[in-house]
C-alpha cells in the first residue's frame, strides 16, 4: 500500500516534468495553445468551486468557535448585522473556564471517564486483536478455519443484536453502572482481529523462519518481529478504535446511570438537558470534545487515509 503510494507520487512528479514540455509543444501549434488556456481557466474555476465548498464545510466549525466565545446575552443580539454572526462583539474566553467549574455538571469527570474508557478499550482491543490475529495468520491448529469463519460471520451482525443479551448478562452480574460494563465489551473485536490478520498475511515469512531455526519462541517472534513490522496497521487500528470509543454514545447511555460516571458523549447530552438554552456553554463543551480528535487527526492524517484504503471501510 505504502509502496504503491510512493509510486504514484513518483509518477506525479514525472508528469510535472512533462507539463512544461507539452506547453512548449502547444506554443508551436496554435490550436493546442488555446486548449492550454482553456485548461488553465478550467483549473481556476475548479479551485474557486472547491474553495466555496471548503468554506461551507468549515462554516459550521467557525460558527461553533464564535458562539463558544460569545457573551451569553449577546448570542441573540449579535445576529442583526451579518458579519456579527461570525465575529462576537466581545470575546469571552471565560466560557472555557466556566465549563470546568459547573456545579451541576461534573464536566471534568466526564472528560476523565472518557479518557479512561477510550484508553482501556483501545489498548485492550489492539492487544487482544493482534494476538488472535497472529494465531490466525501464522499458526496451525485444529479448528482454525472454522473458528475464523465464525469470526467473519459475526462481523455482519448488527451491534444491536448482541447488545440486549450482553446488557442482561452484565445486569445479572451486578455490573451495570460500573466502568467494567462500560469497558469490557468494547475490548474484544472480531473486526480488529480480521483487519490485523489480513495485514499479518502480507508480511514476509523469511524473518520468522530464520528466527524459528534459531530457536525463538512464538512469543518472541510475535513481540520482536511481527509487531514491529506491523506498526502502520497497528497505528490505524489504534486511531480508529480510539475515535470510535471517544464518540460512542449508545452503549455508555445503556450501562451508566450515575452522572459522575458518564463519558463525554452521554455527559454532553446530559449537559444539553440541564443547560438547554446556554448556547455559549454548550458550544464550549462541544469544542472541548472535538479538540483531541482534531489534534489526533491533523497529526496522523496519513494513517486515516491509508487505513481507509487498507480496510476499505470505516471501523
Amino acid at each position, binding site marked *: 500500500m505504502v509502496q504503491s503510494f510512493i509510486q504514484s507520487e513518483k509518477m506525479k512528479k514525472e508528469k510535472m516534468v512533462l*507539463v512544461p514540455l507539452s506547453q512548449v509543444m502547444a506554443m508551436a501549434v496554435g490550436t493546442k495553445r488555446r486548449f492550454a488556456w482553456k485548461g488553465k481557466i478550467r*483549473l481556476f474555476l*475548479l*479551485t474557486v468551486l*472547491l474553495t466555496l*465548498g*471548503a468554506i461551507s*464545510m468549515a*462554516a*459550521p*466549525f467557525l*460558527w461553533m468557535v464564535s458562539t463558544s466565545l460569545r457573551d451569553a446575552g449577546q448570542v441573540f443580539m449579535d*445576529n442583526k448585522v*451579518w458579519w456579527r*454572526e461570525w465575529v462576537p462583539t466581545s470575546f469571552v474566553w471565560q466560557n472555557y473556564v466556566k465549563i470546568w467549574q459547573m456545579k451541576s455538571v461534573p464536566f471534568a469527570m466526564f472528560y476523565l471517564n472518557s479518557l479512561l474508557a477510550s484508553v482501556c478499550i483501545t489498548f485492550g482491543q489492539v492487544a487482544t486483536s493482534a*494476538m*488472535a490475529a497472529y*494465531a490466525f495468520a501464522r*499458526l*496451525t*491448529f485444529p479448528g482454525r478455519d472454522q*473458528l475464523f469463519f*465464525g469470526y467473519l460471520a*459475526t462481523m*455482519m451482525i*448488527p451491534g*444491536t*443484536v*448482541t*447488545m*440486549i*443479551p450482553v446488557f*442482561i*448478562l452484565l445486569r445479572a452480574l451486578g455490573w451495570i453502572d460500573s466502568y467494567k460494563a462500560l469497558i*469490557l465489551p468494547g475490548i*474484544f473485536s472480531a473486526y480488529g482481529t480480521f483487519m490485523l490478520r489480513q495485514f499479518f498475511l502480507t508480511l514476509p515469512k523469511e524473518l520468522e523462519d530464520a528466527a524459528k531455526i534459531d530457536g525463538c*519462541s*512464538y*512469543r518472541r517472534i*510475535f513481540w520482536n518481529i511481527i509487531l514491529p513490522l506491523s506498526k502502520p496497521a497497528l497505528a490505524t487500528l489504534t486511531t480508529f478504535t480510539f475515535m470510535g470509543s*471517544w*464518540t460512542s*454514545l449508545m452503549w455508555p*447511555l445503556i450501562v451508566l446511570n450515575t452522572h459522575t460516571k458518564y463519558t*463525554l*458523549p452521554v455527559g*454532553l*447530552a446530559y449537559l444539553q438537558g440541564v443547560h438547554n438554552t446556554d448556547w455559549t456553554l454548550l*458550544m464550549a*463543551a462541544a*469544542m472541548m470534545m*472535538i479538540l483531541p*480528535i482534531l489534534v489526533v*487527526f*491533523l497529526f496522523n492524517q496519513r494513517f*486515516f487515509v491509508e487505513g*481507509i484504503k487498507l480496510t*476499505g*471501510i*470505516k471501523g
Partner: protein
Amino acid sequence: MKNGMMKDKTKEMIAAYAFLTPNLLGFLVFTSIPVLVSLGLSFMKWDLLSEKAEFVGLKNFIDLAKDPFFWKYCWNTVYLMAAIPISMAGSLLLALALNQKLKGKLFFRTVYFLPTICSGVAIFMLWRLMYNPNFGFFNVMISNFGDLIGLKLTGPNWLTDEAWAKPAFIIMSVWQSVGGYNMILYLAALQGVPRDLYDAAEVDGATSWQKFWAVTWPQISPTTFFIAIMSLIGGFQAGFDLAYIMTGGGPNGSTMTIIYYIFDNAFNWYHMGYAAAISWVLFLIIFVITLLKWRFYGSSIHYT
C-alpha cells in the same frame, strides 16, 4: 524425527490457543453466545423485572408485522437514506476535482474530511443549535439574505416541523459524509484507472464528458458498488446518535429509525423479547444486502 515433528506441532497448537484465548473468551461471552441468546429471546416475552421469560413462539414477529410504528420507522430509515446517493455523487465530484493537477490539494482534502472526523454528539449539538428557528445559523442566514435582496424571508422550524425534520437530517448527513471515507475511496479508485485508456479515448477525439462515461465511470464501478452497499448496510443501522441529540426522535416520531425503536423497546420500556425480534429483522435485512454484495461484487461489475 517423527516424534520431534509431533512435539513441534503440539507446541504450536498450545501457543496458538494461548494467543487466541483472551480474544476468543471475549468473542464467546460478548458476541457469539449473545447472538444465540438474542435469537432465543426473540421468541420470548420478558420485561427484565419478572423472574422468568415466557415463551410466546412467533408472537413478537407477528406483532411486529402489525405494528404501525415499526413500519413508520422503517420508512423513516429508508427516507433518511436519500442522503446516500446525494453524498455519493458529491464525493465522486470532489474526488474528480481533487484528482486534477491543483494547488492545495492536501488542504482541501483536510478541510473536506473535518466533518467526518469530528462526528459524534458535539457535532449533532452544534447542528441542533444551527437549526434553531430564531437564532440559528440557517435562519439568520436566510433572513440576512432576504434583507440583502429586499425581501422578508423567514426560514422553517427545521427540527420541530414534521415536514422539515427529515430534510434537515439529510442536509446534515450529506455535509458530514460528502468529503469523508467515500471521497478517499473514490480518489484511490480514480488514481487506479489506467492512463492509456484515456490516451486511447483522446486519440479517438472523445470529449471530457464522453471520457468520463466511457472510461472513468465503468472503471470505478466496483468502488461505486462497494460504497453503495456499505452505505446501505450502514444506513439501516444509522440514525440513533443524531436523533437522540437533535430531536429525541420527534417531532411526532418523524426522525425515529429502526435502531432508535430497538433502543426504546429494550432500554426504556424493557420489552426485551420484542426488541430482540426487531434486531433480528434488522439483521435479516442486512444479511440479504450482504448476500447481494457477495453475489455481484466482482462478477458482473467491470473489474480490471
